[in-house]
């Protein structure tokens, strides 16, 4: 199969509208409907479209237990102008924001619909995600550690495998929190953040420190995806999708590599094949990736092919992933600064699109032409990624 074999049959997909809420710990002033409406309305305004211009709605969020509303998409149809239109819910744990956008993109690429609203949200303040993830299943040994206890042993395994020095995790957190200061929508705005403050924050699950963990947020993110004709009418420069893929693997199986899961490698390889990317480190200008604990930046850099095994932490340590570095990572401040779980994947995808549209404001990477958006979830069970460009795909 040639690298462009399928692409000629697909309708090119453009992002012409992006909207998100100001992410905060608790949006007590709005219902869930009001929260998603705010993001969707901003995406419509960005695209200068109305509800009547939308042909279908694809929505995603993390497990229902996170707010305790079973199938919330049913009650959100009127808030999202979906009455009388197809409405789909996508469900892939923490990666859901990414896979939701990809399902929406497939509807446009396959010419089922011309213009699709896609949206993802979480209102974490209405419940407790850790409770939702640790139900008291009879006969089962309880997890002996909190949220970070699941991730910290994998971080230690990465350090052992690659010889990464202790301070790399703090460097990532320091960078992401500074990037968040440039993003008005980010949840955490830690003015006066210093590397020393990160490094002196409490060690919660050694080797993971407090400042190296993500917050719990209320927020929503929406995008308007459309076809070539829709992009031609767009008042703002569109972002063009050059490749998108999802991969899954079991949460636990003999031979699973938690440090660099096979499904993540395969997913990235598929995206690069679709986009004609041979050398991601050289050909991709920036990456917005799902980093819930700071150490996942170097881990994913390797998993996504930006560095060989053991090379990820060296990119971080040498400043390559800084906002003004050669390969900026998590320009928005990342999950480390904003985490409405169900929306977190879509925020990554939206940031990639904002960058190639040149509309990322103070956290804009100069000359970003091709940017990767990445999401994962469910104990490294689901992966979803897309690569967007400033120019339409050539094939």
């Amino acid at each position: 199969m040639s690298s462009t074999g399928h692409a000629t049959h697909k309708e090119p997909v453009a992002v012409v509208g992006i909207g998100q809420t100001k992410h905060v710990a608790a949006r007590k002033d709005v219902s869930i409907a009001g929260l998603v409406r705010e993001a969707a309305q901003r995406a419509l305004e960005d695209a200068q479209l109305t509800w009547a211009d939308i042909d279908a709605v694809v929505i995603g969020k993390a497990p229902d237990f996170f707010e305790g509303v079973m199938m919330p998409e049913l009650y959100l149809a009127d808030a999202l102008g979906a009455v009388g239109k197809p409405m789909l819910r996508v469900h892939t744990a923490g990666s859901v924001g990414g896979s939701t956008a990809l399902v929406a993109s497939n509807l446009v690429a396959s010419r089922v619909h011309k213009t699709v609203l896609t949206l993802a949200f979480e209102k974490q303040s209405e419940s407790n995600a850790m409770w939702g993830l640790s139900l008291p299943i009879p006969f089962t040994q309880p997890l002996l550690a909190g949220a970070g206890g699941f991730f910290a042993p994998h971080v230690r395994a990465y350090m052992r495998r690659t010889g990464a020095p202790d301070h790399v995790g703090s460097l990532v957190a320091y960078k992401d929190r500074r990037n968040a200061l440039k993003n008005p929508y980010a949840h955490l705005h830690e003015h006066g953040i210093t590397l020393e403050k990160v490094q002196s924050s409490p060690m919660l699950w050694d080797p993971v420190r407090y400042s190296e963990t993500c917050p719990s947020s209320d927020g929503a993110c929406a995008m308007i995806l459309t076809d070539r004709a829709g992009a031609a009418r767009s008042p703002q420069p569109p972002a063009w999708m050059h490749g998108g893929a999802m991969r899954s693997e079991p949460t636990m199986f003999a031979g699973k590599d938690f440090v660099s899961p096979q499904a993540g490698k395969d997913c990235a390889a598929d995206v690069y094949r679709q986009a004609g990317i041979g050398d991601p480190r050289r050909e991709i200008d920036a990456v917005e990736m799902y980093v819930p604990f700071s150490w996942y930046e170097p881990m994913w850099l390797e998993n996504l092919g930006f560095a060989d095994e053991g090379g990820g932490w060296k990119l971080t340590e040498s400043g390559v992933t800084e906002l003004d570095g050669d390969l900026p990572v998590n320009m928005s401040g990342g999950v480390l600064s904003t985490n409405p779980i169900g929306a977190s994947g879509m925020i990554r995808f939206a940031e990639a699109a904002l960058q190639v549209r040149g509309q990322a404001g103070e956290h804009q990477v100069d000359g970003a032409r091709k940017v990767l958006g990445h999401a994962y979830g469910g104990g490294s069970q689901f992966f979803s990624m897309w690569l967007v460009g400033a120019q339409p795909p050539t094939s």
Partner: protein
Amino acid sequence: MPEVLKAPLVVEFPFTRSLGPVQSAFLTGLRERTVLGVKTTDGKVMVPPVEYDPVTADELRDLVEVEPTGTVTTWAWNPEPRRGQPLDAPFAWVLVKLDGADTGLLHALDAPGPDAVTTGMRVRVRWAAERTGAITDIACFEPYEGAAAEAEPAAHDGQFDDAVSGIVAEARLDYVYSPGRAQTAYINALADRRTVGERCPSCRKVYVPPRGACPTCGVATTDRVEVGPAGTVTTFCIVNVKAKNLDIELPYVYAHIALDGADLALHGRIAGIPYDQVRMGLRVEPVWTEGGRYPDHYRPTGEPDADYDTYKELV
């Protein structure tokens, strides 16, 4: 085949709901014995009110006050009320179109039996004695002899003193949980302080605990294999933060342990060694306490550490 284990599983949580402006006005209104609806773009009155127009998607904010009396548009008899339902005695679920409204409100009707309920019957709100700003401020509906009011519902600004902005929505699910055949055998063996997994007939990997099928090959696993009791710490973290419902002195070590013969690490706590001396490759064995279903923790065996190459595939 021995019987599979079963046990009740109750999942419950007091979820909180931020109401937003429309639901806030509606529920606060109920507290004040006032039923509010919202006018849609085409002039219909919806009760309960919604925030967005179901036809045009417009934002709806024009509230009106409707009557506490109305007409049953359809109903279903509930012969055996369950936990948390509005009435303890048998009652009718009804959709009530309140006078002045164009849509039905779902609630309970207190009636002696199904013969006393008809579509088209007139009903009125029975207010709860104690009202907090919740749908339960309407205790239920009851039969009512008066005719429908003719007047148009009046506009209402939705403003009340001390408005309710959030509610607690208690949710509870009752299950009977069974871990299935494979895990039942695993749990029963643990009672004899033996750890028994199952081997995949295709890839030969030993799963502990067994799931009854190999997640990689998709085939049933049946061959029982006893593993351990000793094993190797493949990786770990030092826990410095108290986990909910766990009474373990901090700090402690939470580790992934590959029992000898298993192809998957399981999880456990390491003790019997200072926390800062635990390391990858440490050889450990289980320590049981009376009545414990699982080992209380694992302690060093005193053997030399395992070589990284012998367990790196299990990390």
